[in-house]
């Protein structure tokens, strides 16, 4: 009969040798209801008065404190009525009113991913029309003559502002798909228009390697590098390092942070 101490040691050893990814659960959305309610009330107060820019901080804080409550949640507004807790939807509306259609689109996609339509059907009848309107504003019917989102994203990446870089590259993809043709990153320095590849790089820096590798697989840069296109000489060197990291099998069981979950949502919605 094994001694208890030895048995305990074996158990502890087994637990410590088990891959951490298989033992841990994904980063589940937390919900600090009291603080989220307080932030939501402050944000919605501005929202109801059409002070769109002022509403954003409170609504964003509420969304970060409680992105997905358990079931419908209606909040009393200090004696001025009630409002369903739909922070992402209201944030989308704010950005629409402020004419920031890419930011609006991201919030509306998060609204869908965090199941707000199920919790606030009556308030969200125009969700689809708002989403379509944003896409119509962002998408270019023909190849645009400039790529300002791409330039901003490129600059943000060099400045190591990974989140900003990722968002701008995603915006650029909504505007026009990857085509590898020459555009300006800044000044007179030409770059190949590869926002999907640049987004993959930014997500890798943000600690979302699984999402980065999925994007890398779909990027046009693979074809251009294979063709020996001289425009992508720099990318051909970067892609080698990224693909080596993507070969790491532990990516399959990656723990998704809240940042990575948001990006999962956006990338899924984008490919609908």
């Amino acid at each position, binding site marked *: 009969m094994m001694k208890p101490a030895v048995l305990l040691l074996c158990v502890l050893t087994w637990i410590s040798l088990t891959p951490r990814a298989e033992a841990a659960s994904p980063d589940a959305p937390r919900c600090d209801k009291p603080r989220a309610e307080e932030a939501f009330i402050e944000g919605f107060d501005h929202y109801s008065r059409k002070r769109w820019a002022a509403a954003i901080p409170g609504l964003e804080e509420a969304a970060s404190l409680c992105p997905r409550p358990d079931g419908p949640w209606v909040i009393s507004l200090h004696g001025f009525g009630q409002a369903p807790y739909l922070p992402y939807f209201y944030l989308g509306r704010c950005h629409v009113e402020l004419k920031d259609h890419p930011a609006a689109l991201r919030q509306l996609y998060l609204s869908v991913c965090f199941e707000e339509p199920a919790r606030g059907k009556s308030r969200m009848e125009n969700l689809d029309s708002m989403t379509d309107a944003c896409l119509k504003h962002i998408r270019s019917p023909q190849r645009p003559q400039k790529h*300002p989102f791409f330039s901003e994203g490129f600059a943000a990446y*060099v400045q190591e502002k990974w989140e900003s870089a990722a968002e701008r590259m995603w915006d650029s993809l909504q505007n026009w798909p990857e085509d590898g043709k*020459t*555009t300006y990153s*800044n*000044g007179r*320095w*030409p*770059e190949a228009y590869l926002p999907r590849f640049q987004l993959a790089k930014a997500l890798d820096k943000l600690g979302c390697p699984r999402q980065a590798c999925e994007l890398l697989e779909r990027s046009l840069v693979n074809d251009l590098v294979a063709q020996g296109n001289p425009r992508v000489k*720099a990318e051909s060197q970067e892609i080698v390092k990224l693909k080596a990291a993507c070969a790491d099998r532990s990516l399959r069981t990656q723990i998704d942070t809240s940042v990575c979950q948001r990006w999962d949502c956006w990338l899924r919605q984008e490919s609908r």
Partner: protein
Amino acid sequence: MKRIAAALFLVLARCPLSAQTNLETNAGVQFNFSTPGAGNMGLGGAFLALAFDASAAYTNPAGLSTITQAESLIEARHWSYTHVFTDRGRIQGQAPAGGPDTEDTIAGLRDGQAEDQVTGLSYFSYVYPRRDWSFAFYRHELVNFEANFSTFGAYLERTRGRNPLGIPGTLDGRLAALRNHMEVGIVAYGGSASYRLSRGLSIGATLSYFDFSINSQADRFLPSLADAPDFDDDPLVNFQTQQGDDTDWGFAGGFLWESGQKTWSVGGVYRQGPDFTFQARSEPGVGALLRFEPRGRQASFHVPDVYGVGLAFRPIDAFRVALDFDRILYSQLTDGFVDIFDLASLSPSQEDEIDRFVIDDADEVHLGLEYAFLRRWPVLTLRAGAWHEPDHSLRFEGDNVGFLAVFRPRGDQMHYTAGVGMALRRIQVDAAIDHSERVSVVSLSAGFRH
């Protein structure tokens, strides 16, 4: 009587009427305080609202915030100067003497021209961006100027009068024949920084250390009244020198605003010019008719302050157009103006005339266009531009006939520019030319991304 009168007016003509002029070398010189970069030059110098390469360290430091990766720029320039100066003839309103035995045959003053060329490494800078800040250091050759020319000696005014012995006759005047040499150099070493205040708005500042040198000499010869000058045989009556080395600090500040899509941009800059001092001397020559004590004075050279604002429009990636307005305070060049000849001691009536030397401030307008063939690799860019340079030559507005003949307005200049560039991901090479009637500049620059 006529022969005596002729001999006397020859003597009188040898009186230092010609020495009552201020240093003629300065009349033929126009300083252009150039901004760096072949890309800048190809656009007619309209760069304040663009300022998107390493030349921004000097031109508009706020533009450094548009640079997202470390880069450097190096430039070489070749200047070709055409100096215009009063050479010969007789002032208007006076009939030339005419005849086969005299050079006094031209009615009206005639200008002469001389050409000089200078080549040098004109600019180098390195830019390091870091998040919302960018930093740069640079070396810029602000002035690299050389002039060598000789004048014939124009005829001035014939008057009736009496010579010092009281004998009546005709007095004539002629400017001395000059042999001039001038070299001026100003090099700036600076550090710049810019900060992005918000999306689309940046400010910047530059602190520069300037190194100045001047070396000029004007030898004054007195040929016979009717003859052409002979610089080997004619007596050297006096000569003037301007010499010195000095240093000073200068400051510049700028801003840059870009619209959300970078379709429009506006930039502005103020550049404070440094002050330098040098020694100006006048000494009698070996052939002096009138001996005087060598005179030395400390003179000042103030690089003009510059205010500028620019607007740029970029509707598509491939095309840009830019427009700049610059006000250059050239009048500051006459601050501390020195009478190198000390004329007041020779003739008190001339004292007030010294204050009648003028240089006008200039309002320059610069326009430039650029088109990039983005489908080509390397990317090929063509540029064209023009800018208007108002006359800012030293001129005299008093009564002294000699000064009026030498220090005259020279007319505005139109400059036409053209440039070409080739760009890869990490290196770009640009070439440009700026041509006007009196100055032509060729520039070659290379930029590197690190």
